[in-house]
């Protein structure tokens, strides 16, 4: 704080996830561009390492940052430490995954959320699949980490589409966000249900595993949708091996949240409610 | 009168019949010897009596009741204490803890009463003459003989009805042995029955009242000691007349060239800092005598390149050499039969044949590939040469009796045809028959021009084998004796460090 620039602490999830890595790159570019604040960024060891996020909040309180911008790994666990940060006079902005409403109420925390609608996004992808297959289409879901909020949201979004398009949900299993596991799990699901027509994968890494499994099985009649729009799925959407994915514009998300936080730090009005960020369905052409 | 009796006991391990009909009885207050060749089944019987494992057939009665302890605890409760042949100490714990391991004293709330524990250990060690050992030191700091004494003292502190000692003297020198015998006499006077296993018949004839002979898992006979002679016992043990040892071959062979010499050798294990010098000639057996802990092992380890050398030089064929490890020493034609076969000599889980070829893999392989046929052949040949007693060459060495394991160690080094062979306690735990065989083999080696350096705590052994005996005390060579000067008295005098009296100074 030597040069009196406000300090923003950015807490993300695992940077081993390219979504957050890209977000970090975006935020760093943003810091460079604006030049009027100092960015401290941390990720966590792995998806389930909630403690390190709490540690990060505590460390930021110790360091006396002006704002904390956080993508919570668990929507409930983070409420209390963030409340502590707010009590210490730090501006807190919650982005990417919303804190749990009930938990907020219980702790008497009032905090706005800046971010996309994960459930809505998943429903966009699910709807694309539903439209393609029509009612009665047999689908399966490849879920993210059980117990993780965004995994939960995305599953719920897919299930919304299943209900709306009267799809036939044959099976739903986790592959822990991971390509190889998705490949294995889906191959086995396909053996158990050879009549699968569509697959909803909760992220693109898993969608890649599914696509490879379909190739090995010699099936080109099964439609796959994913989520995240990582570069690696670009060619797959292009050549029709995947129907669609969903882009949450992660690169800008942290940067936008930081803008909002700095606004408040400079004396702007506190944020309220849900500041929605864009999501977009990505399909061929 | 007989208060423990064993009838028709059988026990097998896989295909091996370790006990094949054992019957004998113990009287109250006697010292009863069990003797027999390696692998005859003595330790197996003892393990059954002490509840380590159950027997297959037969019956045991103890104090008039059927006796079949389910575990060591039960046997101890009934008054049977054992010192097993293999070490059963906890290296990382203190001596006091080891002595009290069966029943550690507790003060209030189950808390360990260290003071009492140390006091008891002190008493137990004092009783056996280990007055100069700190009971709070870890067992790992002790030499092998001291460990044996600690185990004995542990068993002695309880008032048992039967005390079983399985080869307690194998690792002891004369002094500790005679101390042990005094103690045995004392507890015998208290009415305790002592079972004593030893391959040293003179010990058996010194302290025992009766002797039972084992052969191939069967009991051959039980005799009052006064009704038999060592020769008679040996004959029963081996089932034949033992070939008279041709060791009185006083005809001194001419000494060969110097095969290996050591000048002012000081290793990291030697705290005194003064070096050791010695010379070994081809065709000569040099004995290295000394008390336990006098530094015999460390000389051999230093020569063989195991312990780093601090100062001094080693010459092989008069040329200075540096052995940076056993590999170099072996390449220079040196072999080393180590003292502790379990920790340093054998790969217990591996087949007999694999152990025999361990130091000479080149001979049983070509371009890195094992030649099983040649390995088998070589192993079978050395087995025959050493009269090894085994089931199959593919059995793990751990299934052999102690003496036969020792022969495997020997076979391993002989298979390399070493020019210089260092031997540390080469006959520890070996039965009389096998011992004679090993002596003959060593003599043959010397006759073939090999140079041998033998460390032994058995003075008679050194006197039979050696052409010269060096006596060590406090890491220093106190003197050298020629065959004419060989006598227990001369050796012990030097070994007790009275170097000023008697014996020629070396060089």
């Amino acid at each position: 704080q030597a040069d009196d620039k406000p300090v923003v602490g950015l807490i993300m999830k695992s940077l081993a996830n390219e979504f957050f890595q890209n977000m970090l790159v975006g935020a760093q570019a943003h810091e460079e561009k604006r030049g009027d604040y100092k960015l401290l960024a941390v990720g966590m060891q792995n998806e389930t390492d909630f403690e390190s996020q709490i540690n990060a909040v505590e460390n930021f309180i110790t360091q006396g940052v002006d704002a904390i911008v956080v993508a919570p790994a668990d929507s409930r666990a983070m409420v209390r430490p963030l409340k502590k940060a707010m009590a210490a006079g730090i501006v807190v902005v919650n982005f990417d995954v919303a804190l749990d409403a009930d938990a907020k109420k219980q702790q008497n925390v009032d905090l706005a959320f800046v971010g996309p609608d994960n459930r809505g996004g998943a429903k966009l992808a699910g709807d694309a699949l539903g439209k393609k297959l029509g009612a009665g289409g047999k689908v399966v879901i490849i879920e993210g980490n059980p117990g993780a909020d965004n995994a939960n949201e995305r599953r719920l979004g897919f299930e919304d589409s299943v209900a709306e398009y009267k799809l036939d949900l044959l099976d739903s299993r986790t592959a822990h966000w991971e390509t190889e596991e998705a490949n294995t799990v889906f191959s086995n699901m396909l053996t158990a249900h050879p009549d699968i027509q569509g697959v909803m994968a909760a992220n693109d890494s898993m969608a890649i595993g599914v696509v490879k499994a379909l190739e090995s099985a010699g099936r080109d009649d099964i439609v796959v949708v994913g989520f995240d729009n990582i570069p690696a799925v670009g060619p797959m959407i292009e050549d029709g091996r995947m129907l669609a994915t969903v882009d949450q514009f992660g690169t800008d998300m942290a940067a936008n949240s930081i803008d909002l936080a700095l606004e408040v730090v400079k004396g702007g009005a506190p944020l309220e409610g849900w500041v929605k960020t864009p999501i977009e369905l990505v399909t061929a052409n | 009168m007989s208060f423990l009796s064993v009838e028709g006991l059988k026990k097998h391990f896989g295909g091996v019949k370790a006990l094949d009909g054992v019957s004998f009885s113990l009287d109250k207050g006697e010292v009863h010897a069990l003797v027999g060749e390696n692998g005859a089944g003595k330790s197996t019987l003892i393990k059954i009596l002490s509840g380590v494992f159950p027997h297959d057939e037969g019956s045991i009665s103890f104090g008039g009741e059927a006796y079949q302890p389910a575990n060591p605890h039960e046997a101890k409760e009934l008054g049977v204490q054992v010192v097993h042949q293999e070490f059963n100490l906890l290296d990382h714990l203190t001596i006091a803890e080891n002595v009290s391991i069966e029943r550690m004293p507790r003060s209030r709330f189950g808390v360990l009463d260290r003071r009492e524990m140390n006091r008891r250990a002190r008493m137990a060690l004092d009783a056996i003459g280990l007055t100069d050992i700190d009971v709070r030191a870890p067992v790992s700091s002790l030499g092998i003989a001291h460990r044996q004494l600690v185990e004995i003292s542990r068993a002695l502190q309880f008032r048992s009805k039967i005390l079983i000692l399985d080869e307690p003297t194998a690792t002891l020198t004369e002094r500790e042995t005679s101390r042990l015998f005094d103690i045995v006499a004392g507890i015998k006077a208290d009415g305790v029955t002592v079972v004593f296993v030893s391959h040293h018949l003179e010990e058996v004839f010194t302290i025992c009242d009766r002797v039972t002979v084992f052969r191939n898992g069967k009991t051959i006979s039980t005799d009052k000691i006064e009704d038999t002679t060592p020769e008679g016992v040996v004959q029963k043990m081996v089932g034949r007349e033992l070939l008279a040892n041709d060791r009185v071959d006083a005809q001194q062979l001419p000494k060969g060239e110097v095969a290996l010499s050591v000048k002012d050798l000081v290793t990291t294990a030697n705290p005194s800092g003064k070096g050791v010098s010695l010379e070994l000639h081809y065709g000569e057996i040099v004995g290295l005598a000394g008390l336990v802990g006098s530094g015999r092992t460390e000389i051999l380890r230093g020569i063989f390149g195991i312990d780093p050398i601090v100062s001094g030089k080693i010459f092989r064929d008069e040329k200075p050499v540096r052995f940076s490890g056993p590999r170099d020493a072996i390449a220079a034609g040196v072999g080393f039969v180590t003292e502790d076969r379990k920790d340093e000599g054998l790969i217990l889980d591996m087949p007999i044949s694999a152990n025999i070829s361990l130091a000479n893999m080149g001979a049983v392989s070509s371009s890195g590939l094992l030649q099983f046929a040649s390995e088998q052949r070589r192993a079978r040949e050395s087995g025959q040469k050493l009269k090894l007693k085994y089931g199959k060459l593919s059995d793990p060495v751990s299934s052999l009796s102690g003496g036969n394991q020792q022969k495997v160690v020997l076979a391993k080094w002989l298979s390399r045809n070493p020019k210089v062979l260092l031997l540390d306690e080469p006959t520890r735990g070996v039965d009389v028959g096998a011992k004679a065989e090993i002596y003959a083999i060593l003599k043959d080696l010397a006759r073939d021009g090999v140079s041998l350096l033998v460390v032994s705590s058995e003075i008679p052994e050194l006197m039979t084998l050696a052409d010269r005996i060096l006596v060590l005390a406090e890491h220093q060579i106190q003197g050298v004796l020629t065959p004419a000067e060989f006598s227990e008295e001369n050796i012990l005098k030097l070994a007790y460090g009275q170097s000023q009296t008697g014996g020629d100074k070396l060089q």
Partner: protein
Amino acid sequence: MTSQTMTEPVPAQARLSVRSVLQNAGIGLALLALILFFSVFTEHFLTPNNITNILTQITINLVLAVGMTFVILIGGIDLSVGSVMAFAAVVAGKAITLPGFGPAEAIALAIVAATVTGVACGIFNGVVSAYWALPSFIITLGMLNIARGAALQVSDAQTIYSFPFAFEEFGSSMVYGVPVVFLVALLLVLVAWFILNFTVFGRLLYGIGNNEEAVRLAGHPVFWYKVAAFTICGFTAGIAAIVYMARLNISSPIAGIGFELNAIAAVIIGGTSLSGGRGSVIGTLLGAFIIGVLANGLILIGLSDFMRQMITGVVIIIAVVLDYYRAKYTSK
């Protein structure tokens, strides 16, 4: 026999303790070096707040590592502690949120639920691995899966939350800046240290790790001692679950993934031998500090996550290499 360096004026035990202090000091020196380094190169490392943070942050690992020390001392290993912790937390979370209890009762119920769950898993690990003399590595790997699956099943993969306020309170309360949960962990360390050094039970655990057969031949029921060691480890996993809940105010079925490796690392960095029979729980305390200080300091110093992970690996290796030289030097 006469020989022996009888010129020793210092009793062996005294020297032993000095040596064992040095033994621990060895890894203590590595810790000191780390602390010094971070104090110099970061601004906030030695602030009271940050020290509080570090203490809080190492608590769970320390609690798990204390139990792990018992298991490793007997020559075993327990890979299930992370999962068992999650399972215990979920069961306790279900208990604490049961309707119709006052806060005090609910908390008591949760504590009982967590420890009973942990202990039950520990007993299972111990009985199965000791009875059949099976490698505890594989048995506890099985338990890792069982407990994780059970945690997810019981909680239906949902985070359980809204615990009584008093529970939170306990999780974040301090005594002179020292978190109460850390004091709980420290108490466990002391109790463990006492048990291992001053009770017959503790000495026999060392003995079992050293030479199981010898302890059996001395007439001790080795089976039960082994079960006890695993049970203690399960118990500490239950305690860790309570600390976790009090600290995060939630129970998550996916908590504790990979915690077993951290706990084992603390034990081994602390000088306890993986083959059993040698080591100390004080070493474990220092090992847990090394891991915690490293994690904290590397963040403060502002390294990127990936660099941080690499440096963590390098420092762990350097710590044990240093310890080697320390051991070599002091044994001279």
